[in-house]
């Protein structure tokens, strides 16, 4: 959103304390979210209004049916509350920050930091995501709880699985966004590429509609992509559509995609930076 944070103050960071820099960066990323509380309030009002409309459409779809594809109407309300709560934390409408840094050539300054580029950006985004979760996500859940009532995970095990799934959904989503932003190393047209990718993400991760409602064939295609792991898996674990052994399998799939995307990011980043050197950036 805004410019890069200033490097953490308090003396030079030694290579020995390899966690100190990412933690400081994450803390700054977290704090920066609270700079414009008024904008956050308006954003919350806007997201609530869209939540209201989405709930109306889903409830009208259900009509008098008590259950569809494992979802009750109350589950559908919970689904809407969760997806509205995660919009900002997971940057579901897109993220161009790294792309901008590449375009401006500021990425060369990033390389001077005593932390890997990927770790640096992941830390910053983790802080940003947590800030947005506190600032916008939790109030959104509270609003939904007050107006419609939410279904909550049934026990400690389900809570643990949901928490794990939220972390993996963020990691998976961040790595996907980072990978898309890397397109800027090769093309000045990366913004268009990004917009295209975010549209695919919106449909594929279950933001527009719970994936369980889609026809079998379409779901089978999506199951072979990392997109469901970026939101839909978390929702299904929360409302209990996925439980028992299937829950662990779902978490395993999220983890596998996170590792795969991490490798893809590392390879792409290395190739991109080499290209930068060739170009003399």
């Amino acid at each position, binding site marked *: 959103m805004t410019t890069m944070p200033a490097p953490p103050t308090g003396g030079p960071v030694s290579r020995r304390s390899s966690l100190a820099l990412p933690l400081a960066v994450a803390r700054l990323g977290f704090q920066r979210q609270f700079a414009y509380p008024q904008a956050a309030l308006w954003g919350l009002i806007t997201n609530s209004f869209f939540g*209201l409309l989405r709930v109306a459409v889903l409830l009208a779809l259900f009509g008098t049916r008590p259950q569809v594809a494992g979802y009750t109407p109350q589950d559908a309300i919970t689904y809407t509350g969760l997806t509205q709560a995660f919009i900002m934390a997971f940057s579901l409408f897109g993220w161009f920050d790294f792309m901008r840094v590449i375009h401006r050539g500021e990425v060369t300054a990033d390389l001077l930091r005593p932390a890997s580029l990927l770790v640096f950006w992941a830390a910053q985004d983790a802080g940003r995501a947590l800030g947005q979760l506190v600032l916008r996500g939790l109030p959104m859940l509270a609003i939904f709880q007050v107006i419609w009532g939410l279904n909550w995970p049934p026990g400690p095990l389900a809570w643990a699985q949901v928490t794990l799934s939220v972390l993996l959904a963020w990691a998976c989503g961040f790595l996907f966004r980072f990978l898309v932003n890397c397109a800027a190393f090769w093309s000045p*047209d990366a913004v*268009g*590429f990004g917009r295209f990718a975010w549209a695919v993400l*919106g449909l594929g991760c279950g933001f527009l509609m719970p994936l369980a409602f889609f026809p079998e064939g379409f779901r089978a295609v999506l199951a072979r992509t990392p997109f469901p792991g970026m939101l839909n898996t978390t929702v299904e674990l929360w409302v209990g559509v996925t439980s028992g052994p299937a829950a662990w399998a779902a978490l395993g799939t999220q983890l596998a995609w996170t590792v795969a995307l991490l490798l893809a990011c590392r390879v792409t980043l290395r190739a991109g930076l080499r290209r930068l050197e060739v170009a003399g950036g």
Partner: protein
Amino acid sequence: MDNLRHHLTLYLRLLGAQIRSQGAHRTSFILDALGSLLITAAEFAALALVLPRFGGLGGWTLGEICLLYGLAELAFVLMDILFGGFDAPNLSAHVRSGSFSTFLLRPAPLTLQVFASDFALRRLPRVLLAAAIAAYGLLHAPLAAGPETAALLTAAVLGMICFFGGLFVIGGTLTFWTVDSVEAMNALTYGGRTLISYPMDIYSAWLRRTFTYLIPAAFLSYLPALHLLGRPLPDGLPDWAALIGPLAGPLVLAGAFVFWRVGVRHYQGTGT
């Protein structure tokens, strides 16, 4: 008359410059257009793909919903192409960077320059998709073909263009005072588009009434659609309310431009 022709020539010349600059990066343009198209396509697909499982939406068939959805999307995208310069994020960027002040220095009408300042050609494929959805609705909804239907549908689209254009102008004007409320305006513009894309009887009574009597969104296409489908209007509204409904848009637009004049007079620059 001569004055009008001069302004139209000027507007077209400004658009020409925009179009040439947007065509400079061909791949970028194609990707951007595809991405823009895909946003609408994904949103619509999410609805169309799940409808068979549910059978319908509050007693409305896919064809009937396509009529509402397609008309609203068609009008909104056309409006976006026409009024994009007034959209709060665009205008507030001009205000903050000080480039709005240069508009005032140029020997051309200010409003005309704002109109021509964000003509995004990449939205054209979305127009085609919206038209296709509306056409599917026209073919599959039980409408009587005839001049009255054609006239009312055309008036509805033009009315919606005016209505949302008016909201863009109001949102843009607000940025002369504050930029914080920009996102709240999105609730009315993009939210309003979403709201009227579905049959409004699915909303709770207070929400539907707010967007009928306080913000006259229901008059734009919902009431005309009810009339054309032979359904009764809500709240016992008389049938002629559907026929004069599209007038709500031009009224909002006229009010918006009055507000715009006040805002421009108030504008003092950012000092940059």
